[in-house]
């Protein structure tokens, strides 16, 4: 029989005990199951498909039907680029937020209900390691599958349509804002799943925040400065290279990042106090 002394004991700080092993497990749940390829096909396919329609088909159809928007944009090509930016950055931000919510709403809840969390926490595992491993693995997967891959596909389409590279920095600026927007909703959902015990309130609050944010913001306008609701529009403008007053962009951008940090802290604190 293998002697206990032949094995090296894990030597980790107790405050983050088990993090590395839990992160490996979470990464495996994303990358060694069908989850990765479903998302790798879904998001680039859906967003890339819509952008392709805007770039390659819509301008021709709009020009043929004499749509005045084509002339207002400065011709079929600028019209197509403008529509593609709106679709990818503005509507895409909303779609990715919904995607992040749907993909993360059961990360903690499923394991909590099935008893897996109880089993894991009976190992030498710090509770914050459990929450952080889920958050880090989800951020990584969502950045790659939901944002980077579709952005690459869209950028290549721009290249194909223009016949030359689209200005990289504005495009990356727009993608950066999309990342902040998406991660805000991911952290919100993770926090909600440590507070509530069923899917309904988690999905209701998180999806409600995405769907009705614009409406609430138009009624209580100061909220637009501290919530991420205008970030999709700003992402499209930044990608277009249009100037945005610094305060108008940086306030919601900084606030969204801070909210994300607060949500992560609340999620960890709430999980620390949870009973199984």
């Amino acid at each position, binding site marked *: 029989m293998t002697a206990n002394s032949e094995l090296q004991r894990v030597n980790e700080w107790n405050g983050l005990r088990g993090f590395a092993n839990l992160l490996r497990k979470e990464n495996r749940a994303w990358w060694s199951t069908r989850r990765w390829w479903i998302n790798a096909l879904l998001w680039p396919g859906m967003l890339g498909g819509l952008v392709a329609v805007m770039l390659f088909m819509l301008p021709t159809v709009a020009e043929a039907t004499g749509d005045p928007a084509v002339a207002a944009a400065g011709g079929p090509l600028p019209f197509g680029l403008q529509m593609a930016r709106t679709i990818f950055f503005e509507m895409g931000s909303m779609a990715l937020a919904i995607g992040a919510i749907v993909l993360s709403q059961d990360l903690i809840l499923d394991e909590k209900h099935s008893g897996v969390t109880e089993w894991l926490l009976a190992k030498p*595992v710090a509770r914050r390691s459990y929450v952080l491993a889920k958050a880090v693995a989800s951020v990584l997967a969502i950045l790659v599958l939901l944002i980077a891959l579709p952005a690459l596909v869209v950028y290549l389409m721009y290249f194909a349509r223009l016949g030359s590279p689209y200005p990289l920095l504005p495009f990356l600026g727009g993608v950066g804002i999309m990342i902040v927007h998406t991660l805000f909703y991911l952290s919100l959902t993770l926090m909600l799943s440590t507070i509530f015990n069923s899917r309904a309130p988690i999905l209701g609050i998180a999806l409600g925040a995405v769907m009705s944010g614009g409406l609430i913001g138009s009624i209580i306008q100061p909220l637009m400065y501290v919530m991420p609701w205008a970030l999709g529009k700003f992402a499209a403008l930044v990608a277009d290279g249009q100037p945005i007053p610094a305060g108008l962009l940086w306030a919601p951008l900084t606030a969204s990042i801070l909210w994300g940090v607060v949500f992560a802290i609340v999620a960890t604190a709430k999980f620390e106090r949870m009973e199984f």
Partner: protein
Amino acid sequence: MSHTGDFVIETRGLSKSFGDVNALRGVDLNVPRHSIFGFLGPNGAGKTTLMKTLLGLSRPTSGSGTIFGHDIVTESVSIRERIGYLPQQPRFIEYMTARENLLFAAKFFFNGPQAKIRERCDEMLELVGLADKADRPTKGFSGGEKQRLGIALAQVNYPDLLVLDEPASALDPLGRQSVLEIMERLRKHTTIFYSTHILDDVQRVSDTVAILNRGQVVASGPIESILNGKDGVVYSISLKGAPGNLGERLSKLSWVTHTSVSQVNGTSVWQVSVSDEDTAEVDLLRQVLAEPAATVTEFSRKKYELEEVFMDIVKGDGNDS
């Protein structure tokens, strides 16, 4: 609370409330090192709550507890380093095979050498008789297989204490038999603290027992002393013929605390409770044989079944359901 070193688990006045419900009420418990400690109680007695509180899955409302001298609230991670836990319904990572689940669990404790970790996992699969199913996803495992894999997972880190919550309750007789055999095999390596309501299992494998009822420990100690019942040592004597003044003579002996007689098929059956076991062993039969008109057909020390003792204690505690 001071740690004596003789006990793996020590609790003092440990209480846990959920709103108005007092799940644990001042539990005092001492679990001796290297014992198989059976933790008995009817459903809802608080067995699982106590286990979860000891493991840091739930916080005590009041009282204190230590495991290996470490505080169960503030030093839980250090405690769990040395514990193996089998929940009532074992759960695993479903997309992993049995071997992968074991490797995953082992890596909370060990980081190398990888070959030795794999070897340890294979040994555990062998121990619980799942070597031939090691590479099957756990999703399709039967209840008995899950229970056995759960034990392997709990044992993978060479725990100094195994905490098993109802390890055999959901199993058929063969599955139960197999789990009890595994527990007996493990007793030389570790202390086993397990909860159950299957009294036969306790009588078969435990050396120490505690009975929990409505959140309180109502009896605890070595199984032999529990099996003596609360009346202490009792001898059963069957006599044919006239007993004469046997009852009067016995009642005058200082070490006899109580006698009772019943008639069964023309035989009088005497139950004699004694306070001094050693004297009774030497003297009691002699006293009975001194009665010339009576013939002794049976003389034995009364053995209680655990079920009898359990029912007596639990009902005596006001739980008549």
